[in-house]
Protein backbone atom coordinates (compact mmCIF):
# COMPACT_ATOMS: atom_id res chain seq x y z
CA UNK A 1 0.00 0.00 0.00
CA UNK A 2 2.68 2.41 1.09
CA UNK A 3 5.09 1.56 -1.69
CA UNK A 4 2.23 1.64 -4.18
CA UNK A 5 1.43 5.16 -3.13
CA UNK A 6 5.05 6.17 -3.31
CA UNK A 7 5.58 4.89 -6.79
CA UNK A 8 2.26 6.32 -7.90
CA UNK A 9 3.29 9.67 -6.53
CA UNK A 10 6.69 9.68 -8.13
CA UNK A 11 5.11 8.59 -11.37
CA UNK A 12 2.85 11.58 -11.24
CA UNK A 13 5.76 13.83 -10.45
CA UNK A 14 7.59 12.59 -13.51
CA UNK A 15 10.66 12.16 -11.36
CA UNK A 16 12.20 9.05 -12.81
CA UNK A 17 15.84 9.75 -13.46
CA UNK A 18 18.49 7.07 -13.30
CA UNK A 19 18.00 4.87 -10.22
CA UNK A 20 21.22 6.08 -8.61
CA UNK A 21 19.99 9.68 -8.65
CA UNK A 22 16.74 8.91 -6.87
CA UNK A 23 18.43 8.59 -3.52
CA UNK A 24 20.36 11.82 -4.01
CA UNK A 25 17.21 13.71 -4.94
CA UNK A 26 15.42 12.38 -1.87
CA UNK A 27 18.19 13.82 0.27
CA UNK A 28 18.09 17.17 -1.53
CA UNK A 29 14.68 17.90 -0.04
CA UNK A 30 15.91 17.60 3.53
CA UNK A 31 19.17 19.52 3.10
CA UNK A 32 17.89 22.87 4.49
CA UNK A 33 16.64 21.08 7.60
CA UNK A 34 19.88 19.16 8.06
CA UNK A 35 21.93 22.30 7.51
CA UNK A 36 19.99 24.18 10.17
CA UNK A 37 20.29 21.30 12.63
CA UNK A 38 24.00 21.06 11.89
CA UNK A 39 24.59 24.77 12.50
CA UNK A 40 22.44 25.34 15.57
CA UNK A 41 22.24 21.98 17.31
CA UNK A 42 25.05 19.65 16.24
CA UNK A 43 27.91 22.16 15.99
CA UNK A 44 27.23 23.77 19.40
CA UNK A 45 26.90 20.34 21.03
CA UNK A 46 29.99 19.07 19.26
CA UNK A 47 31.95 22.12 20.40
CA UNK A 48 31.15 21.31 24.03
CA UNK A 49 31.81 17.62 23.45
CA UNK A 50 35.22 18.12 21.88
CA UNK A 51 36.14 20.79 24.42
CA UNK A 52 35.42 18.34 27.22
CA UNK A 53 38.30 16.18 26.04
CA UNK A 54 40.84 18.96 25.55
CA UNK A 55 43.20 20.77 27.86
CA UNK A 56 43.84 24.52 27.69
CA UNK A 57 46.28 24.13 24.81
CA UNK A 58 43.94 21.91 22.81
CA UNK A 59 45.56 18.54 23.45
CA UNK A 60 43.48 15.46 24.13
CA UNK A 61 42.93 14.72 27.82
CA UNK A 62 40.57 12.86 30.12
CA UNK A 63 41.45 15.20 32.99
CA UNK A 64 38.17 17.20 32.67
CA UNK A 65 36.07 14.07 32.86
CA UNK A 66 38.03 12.96 35.89
CA UNK A 67 37.57 16.41 37.48
CA UNK A 68 33.80 15.93 37.28
CA UNK A 69 34.14 13.35 40.04
CA UNK A 70 35.49 15.82 42.57
CA UNK A 71 33.21 16.54 45.57
CA UNK A 72 32.02 20.08 44.63
CA UNK A 73 30.92 19.11 41.13
CA UNK A 74 29.56 15.73 42.14
CA UNK A 75 27.45 17.40 44.82
CA UNK A 76 25.91 19.74 42.21
CA UNK A 77 24.96 16.76 40.03
CA UNK A 78 23.74 14.93 43.10
CA UNK A 79 21.47 17.77 44.29
CA UNK A 80 20.07 18.10 40.77
CA UNK A 81 19.47 14.37 40.52
CA UNK A 82 17.87 14.18 43.97
CA UNK A 83 15.52 17.08 43.32
CA UNK A 84 14.56 15.60 39.94
CA UNK A 85 13.98 12.15 41.44
CA UNK A 86 11.93 13.53 44.31
CA UNK A 87 9.71 15.79 42.19
CA UNK A 88 9.33 13.10 39.51
CA UNK A 89 8.22 10.60 42.13
CA UNK A 90 5.90 12.91 44.08
CA UNK A 91 4.60 14.61 40.95
CA UNK A 92 4.17 11.20 39.34
CA UNK A 93 2.24 9.59 42.18
CA UNK A 94 0.08 12.61 43.08
CA UNK A 95 -0.42 13.45 39.41
CA UNK A 96 -1.61 9.92 38.76
CA UNK A 97 -4.09 10.07 41.66
CA UNK A 98 -5.33 13.45 40.48
CA UNK A 99 -5.67 12.33 36.87
CA UNK A 100 -7.49 9.18 37.94
CA UNK A 101 -9.85 11.19 40.12
CA UNK A 102 -10.50 13.65 37.30
CA UNK A 103 -11.34 10.86 34.85
CA UNK A 104 -13.70 9.11 37.25
CA UNK A 105 -17.29 9.07 36.05
CA UNK A 106 -18.50 10.77 39.18
CA UNK A 107 -16.44 13.89 38.55
CA UNK A 108 -18.55 16.60 36.91
CA UNK A 109 -17.54 17.21 33.29
CA UNK A 110 -17.05 20.96 33.76
CA UNK A 111 -14.64 20.37 36.64
CA UNK A 112 -12.71 17.77 34.65
CA UNK A 113 -12.28 19.94 31.57
CA UNK A 114 -11.53 23.06 33.63
CA UNK A 115 -8.78 21.29 35.58
CA UNK A 116 -7.34 19.58 32.50
CA UNK A 117 -7.12 22.97 30.78
CA UNK A 118 -5.54 24.39 33.90
CA UNK A 119 -2.94 21.62 33.75
CA UNK A 120 -2.05 22.71 30.22
CA UNK A 121 -1.53 26.24 31.47
CA UNK A 122 0.33 25.31 34.67
CA UNK A 123 2.71 22.91 32.94
CA UNK A 124 3.72 25.83 30.71
CA UNK A 125 3.73 28.37 33.51
CA UNK A 126 7.23 27.91 34.83
CA UNK A 127 10.37 29.84 35.37
CA UNK A 128 10.54 33.34 36.77
CA UNK A 129 6.83 34.10 37.36
CA UNK A 130 6.34 30.72 39.02
CA UNK A 131 9.19 31.32 41.43
CA UNK A 132 7.79 34.74 42.27
CA UNK A 133 4.29 33.38 42.85
CA UNK A 134 5.74 30.92 45.36
CA UNK A 135 7.64 33.69 47.13
CA UNK A 136 4.33 35.54 47.53
CA UNK A 137 2.82 32.33 48.93
CA UNK A 138 5.43 30.52 51.01
CA UNK A 139 8.16 33.14 51.34
CA UNK A 140 8.88 34.74 54.72
CA UNK A 141 6.18 37.35 54.10
CA UNK A 142 4.05 35.07 51.92
CA UNK A 143 0.32 34.77 52.38
CA UNK A 144 0.33 31.18 53.65
CA UNK A 145 3.32 31.77 55.95
CA UNK A 146 1.72 34.86 57.50
CA UNK A 147 -1.74 33.31 57.77
CA UNK A 148 -0.41 30.20 59.48
CA UNK A 149 1.64 32.28 61.87
CA UNK A 150 -1.09 34.72 62.79
CA UNK A 151 -4.18 32.52 62.70
CA UNK A 152 -2.84 29.17 63.86
CA UNK A 153 0.38 30.20 65.56
CA UNK A 154 2.40 27.91 63.29
CA UNK A 155 5.70 29.45 62.21
CA UNK A 156 6.86 27.51 59.15
CA UNK A 157 10.29 29.09 59.15
CA UNK A 158 10.83 28.41 62.83
CA UNK A 159 9.90 24.79 62.15
CA UNK A 160 12.81 24.62 59.76
CA UNK A 161 11.04 25.20 56.46
CA UNK A 162 12.79 27.44 53.98
CA UNK A 163 11.43 28.21 50.52
CA UNK A 164 14.91 28.96 49.22
CA UNK A 165 16.20 25.47 49.95
CA UNK A 166 16.00 21.96 48.53
CA UNK A 167 12.48 21.31 49.85
CA UNK A 168 11.20 24.75 48.94
CA UNK A 169 12.48 24.33 45.40
CA UNK A 170 10.87 20.88 45.24
CA UNK A 171 7.45 22.24 46.26
CA UNK A 172 7.82 24.90 43.57
CA UNK A 173 8.88 22.41 40.87
CA UNK A 174 5.81 20.31 41.67
CA UNK A 175 3.69 23.14 40.33
CA UNK A 176 4.74 22.22 36.79
CA UNK A 177 5.55 18.55 37.44
CA UNK A 178 2.10 17.61 38.77
CA UNK A 179 0.10 19.05 35.83
CA UNK A 180 2.57 17.58 33.33
CA UNK A 181 2.01 14.15 34.88
CA UNK A 182 -1.77 14.61 34.62
CA UNK A 183 -1.48 15.46 30.92
CA UNK A 184 0.94 12.65 30.08
CA UNK A 185 -0.80 9.88 32.03
CA UNK A 186 -4.40 10.74 31.05
CA UNK A 187 -4.35 8.80 27.75
CA UNK A 188 -2.99 5.71 29.52
CA UNK A 189 -5.72 5.83 32.17
CA UNK A 190 -8.32 6.30 29.46
CA UNK A 191 -6.87 3.16 27.84
CA UNK A 192 -7.79 1.04 30.87
CA UNK A 193 -10.81 -0.89 29.67
CA UNK A 194 -13.88 -1.03 31.76
CA UNK A 195 -14.28 -4.71 30.89
CA UNK A 196 -11.02 -5.61 32.65
CA UNK A 197 -12.28 -4.17 35.86
CA UNK A 198 -15.71 -5.75 35.50
CA UNK A 199 -14.21 -9.13 34.69
CA UNK A 200 -12.01 -8.91 37.77
CA UNK A 201 -14.97 -7.93 39.94
CA UNK A 202 -17.08 -10.76 38.57
CA UNK A 203 -14.35 -13.17 39.51
CA UNK A 204 -14.49 -11.79 43.04
CA UNK A 205 -11.48 -9.47 43.05
CA UNK A 206 -11.39 -6.67 45.59
CA UNK A 207 -10.43 -3.17 44.32
CA UNK A 208 -7.01 -3.68 45.88
CA UNK A 209 -6.56 -6.99 44.04
CA UNK A 210 -7.70 -5.40 40.80
CA UNK A 211 -5.10 -2.68 41.12
CA UNK A 212 -2.31 -4.96 42.27
CA UNK A 213 -2.77 -7.69 39.67
CA UNK A 214 -4.25 -5.79 36.70
CA UNK A 215 -4.33 -2.01 36.87
CA UNK A 216 -0.79 -1.30 38.08
CA UNK A 217 0.98 -3.89 35.88
CA UNK A 218 -0.78 -2.52 32.78
CA UNK A 219 -0.05 1.08 33.65
CA UNK A 220 3.49 0.49 34.92
CA UNK A 221 5.38 1.23 31.68
CA UNK A 222 3.34 4.39 31.12
CA UNK A 223 3.81 5.47 34.72
CA UNK A 224 7.55 4.91 34.63
CA UNK A 225 7.84 6.59 31.24
CA UNK A 226 5.94 9.62 32.44
CA UNK A 227 8.06 9.87 35.56
CA UNK A 228 11.24 9.74 33.48
CA UNK A 229 9.86 12.62 31.43
CA UNK A 230 9.26 14.49 34.67
CA UNK A 231 12.80 13.74 35.77
CA UNK A 232 14.25 15.28 32.62
CA UNK A 233 11.92 18.23 32.99
CA UNK A 234 13.25 19.03 36.45
CA UNK A 235 16.86 18.13 35.69
CA UNK A 236 17.16 20.76 32.95
CA UNK A 237 15.28 23.47 34.90
CA UNK A 238 17.28 26.65 35.33
CA UNK A 239 14.98 29.69 35.33
CA UNK A 240 12.83 28.59 38.27
CA UNK A 241 15.84 27.66 40.37
CA UNK A 242 17.86 30.81 39.72
CA UNK A 243 14.96 33.16 40.34
CA UNK A 244 13.81 31.38 43.48
CA UNK A 245 17.17 30.94 45.19
CA UNK A 246 19.19 33.62 43.44
CA UNK A 247 21.77 30.96 42.64
CA UNK A 248 22.33 29.97 46.27
CA UNK A 249 21.42 26.34 45.71
CA UNK A 250 24.13 24.18 44.20
CA UNK A 251 22.38 22.75 41.13
CA UNK A 252 24.22 21.62 38.02
CA UNK A 253 22.25 24.04 35.79
CA UNK A 254 23.15 26.95 38.07
CA UNK A 255 26.80 25.93 38.07
CA UNK A 256 26.77 25.88 34.26
CA UNK A 257 25.04 29.27 34.22
CA UNK A 258 27.75 30.74 36.44
CA UNK A 259 30.38 29.18 34.22
CA UNK A 260 28.87 30.86 31.12
CA UNK A 261 28.78 34.29 32.83
CA UNK A 262 32.36 34.14 34.00
CA UNK A 263 34.73 31.23 34.20
CA UNK A 264 33.99 30.37 37.87
CA UNK A 265 35.78 27.02 37.64
CA UNK A 266 38.89 28.72 36.18
CA UNK A 267 38.92 26.08 33.49
CA UNK A 268 36.70 26.54 30.41
CA UNK A 269 37.17 22.93 29.37
CA UNK A 270 35.88 21.66 32.70
CA UNK A 271 32.80 23.83 32.04
CA UNK A 272 32.23 21.97 28.76
CA UNK A 273 32.57 18.66 30.59
CA UNK A 274 29.85 19.79 33.04
CA UNK A 275 27.49 20.30 30.11
CA UNK A 276 28.50 16.98 28.59
CA UNK A 277 27.68 15.23 31.87
CA UNK A 278 24.19 16.76 31.82
CA UNK A 279 23.58 15.59 28.27
CA UNK A 280 24.74 12.08 29.16
CA UNK A 281 22.27 11.89 32.06
CA UNK A 282 19.48 13.24 29.83
CA UNK A 283 20.34 10.84 27.01
CA UNK A 284 20.19 7.84 29.33
CA UNK A 285 16.82 9.02 30.66
CA UNK A 286 15.33 9.70 27.25
CA UNK A 287 16.46 6.33 25.87
CA UNK A 288 14.76 4.65 28.82
CA UNK A 289 11.65 6.73 28.17
CA UNK A 290 11.63 5.76 24.51
CA UNK A 291 11.95 2.04 25.31
CA UNK A 292 9.22 2.17 27.95
CA UNK A 293 6.87 4.08 25.68
CA UNK A 294 7.25 1.56 22.91
CA UNK A 295 6.58 -1.17 25.43
CA UNK A 296 3.47 0.50 26.82
CA UNK A 297 2.09 1.26 23.36
CA UNK A 298 2.41 -2.36 22.37
CA UNK A 299 0.49 -3.35 25.48
CA UNK A 300 -2.36 -0.89 24.95
CA UNK A 301 -2.78 -1.63 21.27
CA UNK A 302 -3.81 -5.25 21.86
Amino acid at each position, binding site marked *: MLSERRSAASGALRLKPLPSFIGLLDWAGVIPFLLFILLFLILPSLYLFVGSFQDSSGRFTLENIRALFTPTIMSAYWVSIRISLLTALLGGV*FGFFLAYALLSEETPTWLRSALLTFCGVASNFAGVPLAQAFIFTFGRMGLVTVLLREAVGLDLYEMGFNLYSFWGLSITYLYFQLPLMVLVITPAIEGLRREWREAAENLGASPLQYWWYIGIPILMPSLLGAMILLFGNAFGAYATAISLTGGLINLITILIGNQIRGDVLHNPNLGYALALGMVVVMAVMMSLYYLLRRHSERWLRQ
Partner: protein
Amino acid sequence: MRKATLWNWFWILLGLLYFFLPLLATFHFSLRARKEALSLLAYQQMIEDTRIWQALLYSIQIGLLTIGLGLLLMVPTVYWVHLRARYLRPMIEFFSLLPFVIPAIVLVFGLIRIYSGDPFPLTNTYAGTDFLLIAGYVVLTLPYLYRAIDAGMTAIDVATLTEAAQSLGAGWGTILFRVIVPNLRSAMLGAAFLILAIVLGEFTIASFIVGLRAFGPVIWQVGQNRAYEASALVIFSFLLTWILMALINFVARRAVVTSGPR
Protein backbone atom coordinates in the same frame (compact mmCIF):
# COMPACT_ATOMS: atom_id res chain seq x y z
CA MET B 1 -20.58 8.29 49.86
CA ARG B 2 -18.49 5.45 48.50
CA LYS B 3 -14.92 5.12 49.69
CA ALA B 4 -13.59 5.49 46.15
CA THR B 5 -15.57 8.67 45.62
CA LEU B 6 -14.21 10.16 48.82
CA TRP B 7 -10.69 9.26 47.73
CA ASN B 8 -11.17 10.92 44.35
CA TRP B 9 -12.57 14.09 45.86
CA PHE B 10 -9.70 14.23 48.31
CA TRP B 11 -7.18 14.42 45.44
CA ILE B 12 -9.24 16.86 43.44
CA LEU B 13 -9.62 19.22 46.38
CA LEU B 14 -5.95 18.92 47.28
CA GLY B 15 -5.04 19.66 43.65
CA LEU B 16 -7.34 22.67 43.55
CA LEU B 17 -5.86 24.00 46.77
CA TYR B 18 -2.28 23.55 45.57
CA PHE B 19 -2.99 25.05 42.15
CA PHE B 20 -4.91 28.09 43.33
CA LEU B 21 -3.11 29.09 46.52
CA PRO B 22 -0.06 30.59 44.77
CA LEU B 23 -2.28 32.48 42.32
CA LEU B 24 -4.50 33.70 45.13
CA ALA B 25 -1.53 34.77 47.24
CA THR B 26 0.05 36.62 44.32
CA PHE B 27 -3.22 38.35 43.46
CA HIS B 28 -3.75 39.28 47.10
CA PHE B 29 -0.25 40.73 47.26
CA SER B 30 -0.74 42.66 44.03
CA LEU B 31 -3.68 44.57 45.57
CA ARG B 32 -1.68 45.80 48.53
CA ALA B 33 0.69 48.28 46.96
CA ARG B 34 -0.94 51.00 49.13
CA LYS B 35 -0.48 50.46 52.83
CA GLU B 36 -3.96 51.62 53.92
CA ALA B 37 -6.33 49.94 51.50
CA LEU B 38 -6.63 47.51 48.63
CA SER B 39 -5.81 49.19 45.34
CA LEU B 40 -4.84 48.57 41.75
CA LEU B 41 -1.74 50.73 42.15
CA ALA B 42 0.58 47.81 41.28
CA TYR B 43 -1.26 47.28 38.01
CA GLN B 44 -1.08 50.99 37.27
CA GLN B 45 2.68 50.93 37.89
CA MET B 46 3.00 47.92 35.63
CA ILE B 47 1.01 49.55 32.83
CA GLU B 48 3.06 52.73 33.05
CA ASP B 49 6.36 50.87 32.97
CA THR B 50 7.34 51.20 29.31
CA ARG B 51 10.30 48.83 29.58
CA ILE B 52 7.92 45.96 30.25
CA TRP B 53 5.88 46.63 27.15
CA GLN B 54 8.93 47.20 24.99
CA ALA B 55 10.31 43.87 26.14
CA LEU B 56 6.97 42.13 25.60
CA LEU B 57 6.73 43.59 22.10
CA TYR B 58 10.29 42.44 21.38
CA SER B 59 9.52 38.92 22.62
CA ILE B 60 6.31 38.78 20.58
CA GLN B 61 8.30 39.73 17.48
CA ILE B 62 10.93 37.10 18.28
CA GLY B 63 8.15 34.57 18.88
CA LEU B 64 6.47 35.31 15.55
CA LEU B 65 9.78 35.10 13.70
CA THR B 66 10.53 31.81 15.48
CA ILE B 67 7.17 30.45 14.31
CA GLY B 68 7.81 31.73 10.78
CA LEU B 69 11.30 30.26 10.50
CA GLY B 70 10.21 27.01 12.13
CA LEU B 71 7.28 26.54 9.75
CA LEU B 72 9.35 27.51 6.72
CA LEU B 73 11.91 24.90 7.71
CA MET B 74 9.64 22.08 8.85
CA VAL B 75 6.58 22.15 6.59
CA PRO B 76 8.48 21.57 3.30
CA THR B 77 10.83 19.07 4.97
CA VAL B 78 8.08 16.95 6.52
CA TYR B 79 6.03 17.22 3.33
CA TRP B 80 8.95 16.03 1.26
CA VAL B 81 9.67 13.15 3.61
CA HIS B 82 6.03 12.05 3.61
CA LEU B 83 5.75 12.28 -0.15
CA ARG B 84 9.07 11.14 -1.49
CA ALA B 85 11.40 9.75 1.14
CA ARG B 86 9.58 7.93 3.89
CA TYR B 87 12.72 6.05 4.77
CA LEU B 88 14.26 9.36 5.90
CA ARG B 89 11.47 9.90 8.41
CA PRO B 90 13.18 8.18 11.38
CA MET B 91 16.22 10.40 10.83
CA ILE B 92 14.16 13.60 10.72
CA GLU B 93 12.28 12.46 13.80
CA PHE B 94 15.51 11.72 15.63
CA PHE B 95 16.99 15.16 14.95
CA SER B 96 13.69 16.88 15.70
CA LEU B 97 13.37 15.23 19.10
CA LEU B 98 17.07 15.63 19.93
CA PRO B 99 16.53 19.01 21.66
CA PHE B 100 14.69 17.11 24.41
CA VAL B 101 18.08 15.66 25.36
CA ILE B 102 19.94 18.99 25.28
CA PRO B 103 18.78 21.22 28.16
CA ALA B 104 18.32 24.90 27.29
CA ILE B 105 21.28 25.92 29.46
CA VAL B 106 23.56 23.55 27.53
CA LEU B 107 22.18 24.70 24.17
CA VAL B 108 22.81 28.36 24.94
CA PHE B 109 26.28 27.51 26.25
CA GLY B 110 27.20 25.91 22.93
CA LEU B 111 25.54 28.63 20.84
CA ILE B 112 27.42 31.40 22.65
CA ARG B 113 30.76 29.62 22.34
CA ILE B 114 30.32 28.99 18.62
CA TYR B 115 28.75 32.27 17.54
CA SER B 116 30.57 34.84 19.63
CA GLY B 117 33.73 34.70 17.56
CA ASP B 118 35.10 33.90 14.13
CA PRO B 119 34.04 32.58 11.71
CA PHE B 120 30.42 33.47 12.65
CA PRO B 121 30.55 36.52 14.96
CA LEU B 122 26.76 36.76 15.33
CA THR B 123 26.84 38.35 18.77
CA ASN B 124 28.61 41.48 17.51
CA THR B 125 25.45 43.07 16.11
CA TYR B 126 21.86 43.48 17.28
CA ALA B 127 20.54 41.75 14.18
CA GLY B 128 23.02 38.94 14.75
CA THR B 129 21.95 38.36 18.37
CA ASP B 130 18.29 38.52 17.36
CA PHE B 131 18.92 35.87 14.76
CA LEU B 132 20.89 33.71 17.18
CA LEU B 133 18.02 33.94 19.68
CA ILE B 134 15.47 32.99 17.03
CA ALA B 135 17.60 30.07 15.86
CA GLY B 136 17.96 28.91 19.46
CA TYR B 137 14.20 29.07 19.94
CA VAL B 138 13.55 27.17 16.72
CA VAL B 139 15.79 24.39 18.06
CA LEU B 140 14.19 24.55 21.52
CA THR B 141 10.64 24.24 20.15
CA LEU B 142 11.49 21.86 17.30
CA PRO B 143 10.10 18.72 19.02
CA TYR B 144 6.64 20.29 19.43
CA LEU B 145 6.59 21.73 15.93
CA TYR B 146 7.76 18.49 14.36
CA ARG B 147 5.18 16.41 16.20
CA ALA B 148 2.35 18.76 15.28
CA ILE B 149 3.26 18.92 11.60
CA ASP B 150 4.06 15.23 11.33
CA ALA B 151 0.73 14.32 12.95
CA GLY B 152 -1.05 16.78 10.64
CA MET B 153 0.66 15.31 7.55
CA THR B 154 -0.15 11.77 8.66
CA ALA B 155 -3.82 12.67 9.01
CA ILE B 156 -4.12 13.86 5.40
CA ASP B 157 -3.36 11.84 2.30
CA VAL B 158 -0.36 13.79 1.06
CA ALA B 159 0.25 11.72 -2.06
CA THR B 160 -3.34 11.82 -3.33
CA LEU B 161 -3.69 15.53 -2.65
CA THR B 162 -0.45 16.19 -4.50
CA GLU B 163 -1.46 14.08 -7.49
CA ALA B 164 -4.89 15.69 -7.63
CA ALA B 165 -3.36 19.15 -7.56
CA GLN B 166 -0.81 18.23 -10.19
CA SER B 167 -3.34 16.74 -12.53
CA LEU B 168 -5.15 20.06 -12.34
CA GLY B 169 -1.93 21.77 -13.37
CA ALA B 170 -0.70 23.14 -10.05
CA GLY B 171 2.98 23.95 -9.57
CA TRP B 172 4.99 23.21 -6.43
CA GLY B 173 4.27 26.57 -4.79
CA THR B 174 0.54 26.21 -5.37
CA ILE B 175 0.54 22.66 -4.03
CA LEU B 176 2.42 23.57 -0.88
CA PHE B 177 0.67 26.84 -0.03
CA ARG B 178 -2.83 26.31 -1.38
CA VAL B 179 -3.32 22.58 -0.92
CA ILE B 180 -1.09 21.23 1.86
CA VAL B 181 -0.87 24.24 4.19
CA PRO B 182 -4.65 24.86 4.41
CA ASN B 183 -5.09 21.22 5.38
CA LEU B 184 -2.52 21.62 8.14
CA ARG B 185 -4.03 24.83 9.47
CA SER B 186 -5.16 23.61 12.87
CA ALA B 187 -1.96 21.64 13.49
CA MET B 188 0.14 24.67 12.54
CA LEU B 189 -1.94 27.11 14.60
CA GLY B 190 -1.81 24.88 17.67
CA ALA B 191 1.96 24.57 17.40
CA ALA B 192 2.27 28.32 16.79
CA PHE B 193 0.43 29.25 19.98
CA LEU B 194 2.47 26.75 21.98
CA ILE B 195 5.72 28.17 20.57
CA LEU B 196 4.55 31.70 21.39
CA ALA B 197 3.74 30.64 24.96
CA ILE B 198 7.18 29.07 25.35
CA VAL B 199 9.06 32.01 23.81
CA LEU B 200 7.21 34.71 25.77
CA GLY B 201 8.05 33.14 29.12
CA GLU B 202 11.51 31.86 28.20
CA PHE B 203 14.31 33.03 30.47
CA THR B 204 17.36 30.79 30.16
CA ILE B 205 18.36 31.39 26.54
CA ALA B 206 17.12 34.99 26.43
CA SER B 207 19.02 36.06 29.53
CA PHE B 208 22.35 34.91 28.09
CA ILE B 209 21.88 36.11 24.52
CA VAL B 210 19.87 39.36 24.67
CA GLY B 211 19.41 40.00 28.40
CA LEU B 212 16.90 42.66 29.37
CA ARG B 213 15.63 43.24 25.87
CA ALA B 214 13.37 40.17 26.24
CA PHE B 215 10.27 39.73 28.40
CA GLY B 216 11.43 36.85 30.61
CA PRO B 217 14.57 38.60 31.90
CA VAL B 218 12.56 41.81 32.46
CA ILE B 219 10.05 39.94 34.67
CA TRP B 220 13.04 38.70 36.62
CA GLN B 221 14.51 42.17 36.99
CA VAL B 222 11.23 43.72 38.13
CA GLY B 223 10.99 40.95 40.72
CA GLN B 224 14.44 41.84 42.05
CA ASN B 225 13.51 45.30 43.29
CA ARG B 226 9.81 46.12 42.88
CA ALA B 227 7.75 43.41 44.54
CA TYR B 228 4.24 44.86 44.05
CA GLU B 229 4.74 45.57 40.38
CA ALA B 230 6.24 42.09 40.05
CA SER B 231 3.13 40.47 41.53
CA ALA B 232 0.94 42.30 39.03
CA LEU B 233 3.28 41.13 36.28
CA VAL B 234 3.03 37.51 37.47
CA ILE B 235 -0.77 37.70 37.27
CA PHE B 236 -0.50 39.26 33.82
CA SER B 237 1.88 36.61 32.50
CA PHE B 238 -0.29 33.85 33.93
CA LEU B 239 -3.30 35.27 32.08
CA LEU B 240 -1.20 35.53 28.93
CA THR B 241 -0.26 31.84 29.17
CA TRP B 242 -3.90 31.00 29.85
CA ILE B 243 -5.10 32.87 26.76
CA LEU B 244 -2.55 31.13 24.54
CA MET B 245 -3.48 27.70 25.91
CA ALA B 246 -7.18 28.47 25.46
CA LEU B 247 -6.44 29.36 21.83
CA ILE B 248 -4.68 26.00 21.37
CA ASN B 249 -7.71 24.19 22.78
CA PHE B 250 -9.88 26.27 20.52
CA VAL B 251 -8.04 25.39 17.29
CA ALA B 252 -7.71 21.72 18.15
CA ARG B 253 -10.40 20.38 20.42
CA ARG B 254 -8.16 17.75 21.89
CA ALA B 255 -4.67 19.07 21.48
CA VAL B 256 -2.06 17.10 23.36
CA VAL B 257 -0.17 19.92 24.95
CA THR B 258 2.87 18.88 26.85
CA SER B 259 5.05 21.32 28.59
CA GLY B 260 7.90 23.38 27.29
CA PRO B 261 11.44 23.16 28.47
CA ARG B 262 12.32 25.48 31.26
